[in-house]
């Protein structure tokens, strides 16, 4: 028995460590493809999967099955689209809750202790801490990208994010609070050309249920994100339209 244990220990020591999936590269939204059943099955019971990824945008007063608290619903219905087309607002980035599903690419830079997600959309960057640290205290600063910690669950990367500053969920007046909690689960397709993810979120201050999206991206080797450098004076173009008629 003793020899067996020693042998097992030696075998463990000499065997190469199982490599974590390599997610590095340039990923652009894939407009086709069915949701991965295995990822969907791992969502918490009762989660509604909202279908506004990439191509789809909800019209006003449509929230894809999310159940809004009365106060949130009243705010959403009072929302005026023209308010977004003002100089002071047009370049405010949405939080990662909405930004993650948009038709813009991102780069993954991966090390054992830290994964960096560099998004083209509004030049945003996320740090995913893989070193086991906890989230900061609840009253720590919030940002549009939030605070993210990650871990590997087999071949899947699980990211837990808090401290996300209030912003839109569905781009039509429904806003999340700064208490929203988001969990993403990423995995590569069998051939490594697709990156698939579920993005689950809960926000009891705003929603009576929990929501999720399924998103997938296609790998495009050799490309890089462009600088976004949002120019707010774009809002003036819309305001000036028709003024001289």
């Amino acid at each position: 028995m003793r020899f067996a244990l020693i042998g097992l220990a030696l075998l463990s020591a000499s065997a190469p460590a199982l490599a974590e999936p390599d997610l590095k590269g340039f990923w652009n939204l894939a407009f086709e493809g069915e949701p991965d059943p295995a990822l969907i099955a791992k969502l918490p019971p009762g989660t509604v999967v909202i279908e506004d990824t990439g191509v789809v945008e909800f019209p006003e007063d449509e929230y894809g099955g999310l159940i809004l608290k009365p106060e949130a619903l009243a705010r959403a219905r009072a929302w005026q689209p023209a308010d977004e087309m003002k100089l002071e607002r047009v370049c405010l980035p949405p939080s990662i809750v909405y930004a993650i599903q948009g038709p813009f690419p991102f780069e993954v830079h991966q090390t054992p202790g830290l994964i960096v997600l560099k998004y083209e959309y509004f030049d945003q960057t996320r740090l995913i801490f893989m070193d086991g640290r906890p989230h900061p205290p609840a009253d720590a600063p919030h940002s549009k990208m939030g605070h993210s910690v990650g871990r590997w669950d087999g071949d899947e990367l699980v990211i837990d994010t808090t401290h996300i500053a209030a912003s839109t969920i569905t781009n039509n007046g429904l806003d999340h609070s700064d208490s929203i909690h988001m969990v993403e689960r990423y995995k590569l397709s069998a051939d490594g050309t697709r990156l698939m993810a579920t993005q689950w979120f809960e926000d009891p201050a705003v929603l009576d249920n929990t929501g999720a999206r399924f998103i997938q991206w296609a790998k495009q080797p050799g490309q890089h994100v462009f600088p976004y450098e949002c120019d707010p004076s774009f809002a003036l173009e819309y305001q000036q339209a028709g003024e001289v008629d």
Partner: protein
Amino acid sequence: MNPSKALSTAALCLAPLAAQAHHSFTVYFDPAKEVTITGTVTSFRFTNPHGTIVLAVADAQGRVREWRAETNAPVVLQRRGWTRASVKPGDRITIDGWPSRDGKPYIRLRRAVHQDGRLVGTAPFGRQDQS
């Protein structure tokens, strides 16, 4: 609930949510309608979140009206062969796209074509390229 969490929740109830949404195609433009305009470019803004082509468009009576065509984000345009020199003031071009829901002379560009028939960029834009 710890004190900091209680404080955070109380603040949330008192303060309006300082949220924002990105400019939405569906909310601003009517995907069921199409409009085509031909005119002379007076300016071309090639900056994110959207480019803008301003066009002087004459009607059948010769009255000139200023139209604006909003493009996809230039980061998207660049991958489809556009540059900030793709359209210049003085160019005569035809643009088709989706009209603004509010009736303004403002459209979302699907395609721009030079007077000699050359497409601006390498391919038109569809609804799936909405940002």
